[in-house]
């Protein structure tokens, strides 16, 4: 059982500002030619933003081990679906 942890409002405001700054950053970076690294940069920023939402807005950081395990489980199975699928397609037509 977990007793409820009340996140201070100042934390929420700080995370909010960071999320807006990262949104602005991701748009600006999209206008730079980074070659094959553009999608990488976009996804790294998106992943970081999502992590902030999960950890602080959704109280992931303050949740029980069970819920943390559930969150990791989602990432794990999503990871399998994305990586194994792409591993298949990207290694076709190799002569």
């Amino acid at each position, binding site marked *: *059982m*977990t*007793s*409820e942890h*009340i*996140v201070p*409002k100042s934390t*929420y*405001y700080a*995370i*909010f500002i960071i*999320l*807006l700054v990262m*949104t602005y950053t*991701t*748009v600006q970076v*999209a*206008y*730079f*030619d*980074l070659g094959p690294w*553009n*999608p990488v940069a*976009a*996804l790294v*920023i*998106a992943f970081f*933003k*999502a992590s902030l*939402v*999960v950890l*602080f*807005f*959704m*109280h992931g950081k303050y*949740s*029980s081990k*069970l*819920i943390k395990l*559930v*969150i990791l*489980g*989602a990432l794990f*199975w*999503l990871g399998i*679906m*994305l990586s194994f*699928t*792409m591993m298949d*397609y*990207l290694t076709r037509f190799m002569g």
Partner: protein
Amino acid sequence: MTSQAAVAPPRALQHHFDSLEQQRDVATLGMWIFLVTEALFFGGLFTAYLVYRSMYPHAFAVASEHTLIALGAANTAILITSSLTMALAVHAAQEGNQKSIIRFLVFTFLLGTAFLVLKGVEYTVDMRDHLLPGANFAIAGANPGHAEIFFSLYFIMTGLHAIHMIVGLSLLVVIMYMTSKGRFSKEYHAPVEVMGLYWHFVDIIWIFLFPLLYLIDRHK
């Protein structure tokens, strides 16, 4: 010795739980598990997107340039703000501040509605520009068949997301109603928390949709 009167269980405590705390833990666990299924649900569409983007990178890049980046970026900011107001609503619930709960839920609702309005504007412009897959689809500078796949994914993914937004807005009204009836307190406010989890998740989906659909290739 004085005998103590038995303390009545809190009205919100259901008979199959030992305590409000346990009941709350179960409610949030249930929502988290549902969100995992939702992540895999959208995940399938993201997988399809990745496969086709790797197969038709040029067509996807050209197609992406036709999306309305200003509206997409504005909607991203709107949803992030709505997550803030939702978190503040949960915070108010933890403090037992009924007026603030409703105030922040209303803000969240208004922001969510603004998102859908902008989405509607976008769809209208997209359809006018022949970007809706089907008989009237037309695009210049790329293989139209491949670009049409991009826009199929665009409409399905943002459409599915919009449906989730509409469900979220409906649930917000329900939670607002429950709050106005005095159902929540410092001790019991699990529905507000669970509402928050759902809302933040819908925000996270958009956080990934925005760069993948709108920002593929803006530097050419």
